[in-house]
């Protein structure tokens, strides 16, 4: 075989093999979906893993954190209700690197909300953040994350107030923690309190997705509050006139509201014949709990390839 022919054959083999390896890898990836994760969890002991990492436990923790994010992201995209590997992955991550505060902050937010927005395990989220506080007692963001879970997911307002109080005592803590702790006693469970929390989330994060999420929640809160308020006004109208208003204009004409109320998308609210207030397009705003037609499920965010969905 002359040199030129050898070159041609070798180049052809190289290119064909390259194409073949890519195709085979795609088949392998399809076959082994989730295999890496299963393998990771053969090791349940962070102590053992730390020894195996030969002192590079920080790097291994980074790897575990990335896997936790991927695990959450893929399940979130699939709108899954089972996130059973999330908690062990987060525990391993934070045991390997107890100073990785991002894993407590975001990890707890993956764990706490109900599926499909999270794993629906707020107690585990609390344990995770408490572990974080134990190792990072001067990080006020962890107290905020913990208070947030107590308030939003567990509805334990007393604990939430205590946690914000603890956080406010930390050196260089953000001033809103003291404000939250003070307001909590009087206004727990009110829309204003939730608005404060989401506004704080919006103002203290640098992550675009989290900002977006905070905005969505703030918009939803506005809708919930508007609908509650408008339905109360409809009740007043009925008490005054003995009948339900036929449209929202009746409320305006009666001087109960100043003008036609609109939702955050600019659409006027709709009054139903049975006196309820509904949105004209209930799928336009995420997370709303009021203003939905009967049986209509609260719209959920469209999943993105990368999480997180929380604060």
């Amino acid at each position, binding site marked *: 075989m002359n040199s030129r022919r050898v070159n041609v054959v070798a180049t052809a083999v*190289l290119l064909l093999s390259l194409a073949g390896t890519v195709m*085979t890898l795609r*088949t392998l*990836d399809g076959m082994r979906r989730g295999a*890496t994760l299963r*393998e990771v969890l053969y090791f349940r002991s962070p102590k053992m893993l730390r020894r195996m990492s030969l002192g590079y436990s920080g790097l291994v923790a980074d*790897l575990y954190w*990335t896997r936790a994010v991927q695990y959450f992201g893929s399940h979130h995209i699939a709108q899954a209700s089972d996130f059973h590997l999330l908690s062990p992955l987060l525990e391993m991550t934070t045991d390997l690197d107890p100073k990785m505060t991002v894993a407590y902050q975001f990890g707890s937010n993956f764990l706490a909300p109900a599926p499909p927005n999270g794993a629906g395990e707020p107690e585990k989220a609390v344990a995770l953040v408490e572990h974080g506080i134990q190792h990072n007692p001067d990080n006020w963001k962890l107290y905020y994350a913990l208070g947030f879970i107590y308030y939003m997911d567990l509805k334990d307002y007393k604990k939430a107030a205590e946690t914000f109080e603890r956080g406010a005592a930390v050196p260089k803590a953000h001033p809103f923690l003291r404000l939250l702790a003070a307001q909590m006693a009087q206004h727990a469970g009110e829309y204003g309190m939730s608005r404060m929390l989401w506004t704080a989330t919006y103002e203290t994060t640098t992550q675009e997705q989290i900002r977006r999420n905070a905005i969505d929640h703030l918009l939803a809160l506005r809708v919930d509050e508007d609908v509650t308020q408008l339905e109360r006004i409809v009740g007043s109208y009925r008490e005054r006139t003995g009948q339900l208003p036929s449209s929202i204009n009746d409320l305006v004409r009666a001087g109960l509201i100043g003008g036609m109320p609109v939702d955050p998308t600019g659409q006027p609210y709709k009054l139903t014949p049975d006196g309820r207030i509904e949105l004209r397009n209930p799928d336009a705003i995420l997370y709303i709990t009021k203003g939905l037609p009967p049986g209509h499920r609260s719209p959920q965010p469209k999943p993105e390839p*990368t999480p997180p969905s929380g604060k």
Partner: protein
Amino acid sequence: MNSRIANVAFNTFREAVRDRVLYNLIAFALLLSAAAILVGQISIDIERLVVVNLGLTAVTLFGVVIAIFIGIGLVSKEIEKRTLYTVLSRPVRRWEFVVGKFLGLTGTLLVNTFFMAIGVFLALLYVSRHFERGDFSITAALYFIILQFLIVCSLALLFSSFSSPLLSAVFTFALFVIGSLAEDLRGFAAAAKGITAMLAGTVAYLVPNFSAMNVVNQVAHGEPVSGQLILCNTVYALLYSAMAISGAVLIFQRRNLK
């Protein structure tokens, strides 16, 4: 097989044996015997697990070290000692020399792995007193280890065809480590966006994929290995080796040996 390739391969094997490469088997035997006896005394019910995990990991690491340290010298040593000129002055073509070297090194590792596999099974018999049905999957893990050696040998030879022995060792070892995390890398690439995703995806598909060939944990827990995985890994290892060897041939063809 072309008799010239066979001759180069056989001489490569003979040279490795003469270099006392197979002495590593003694270290391997000592390691496994000590582990089997020690773990039996100081732990509870993980003797089998330790023997399989430690045995297969040791087979992999010993083999990879041998593949790298012999592979990187295959071309450069021949040039340094000027024996390459003697070989190429005979009717041996450059591509035949490269392919023969690859086969010789692979053969050395096959023999080495064969004896180590016997060691693993003997240690397993010692701790378990009998073989179980699940132990059969250990042969699949050993087969995958051999497939990994094929790729490592071809990479070592590829780097050896244009780089210094030290750099070749570094490159090959680095690719072995990256390749062992290849599935993660592809996962990260899939989660990335824009140009990062494109770059990460390209790298992820170019580096060797050793992740799918590492079933040590799986077989240590007695889980079977699917036939489809065996088939895919075989095809992949052969194609990847062919790709690296073709690269080595192309470089070596152009190399000025004067």
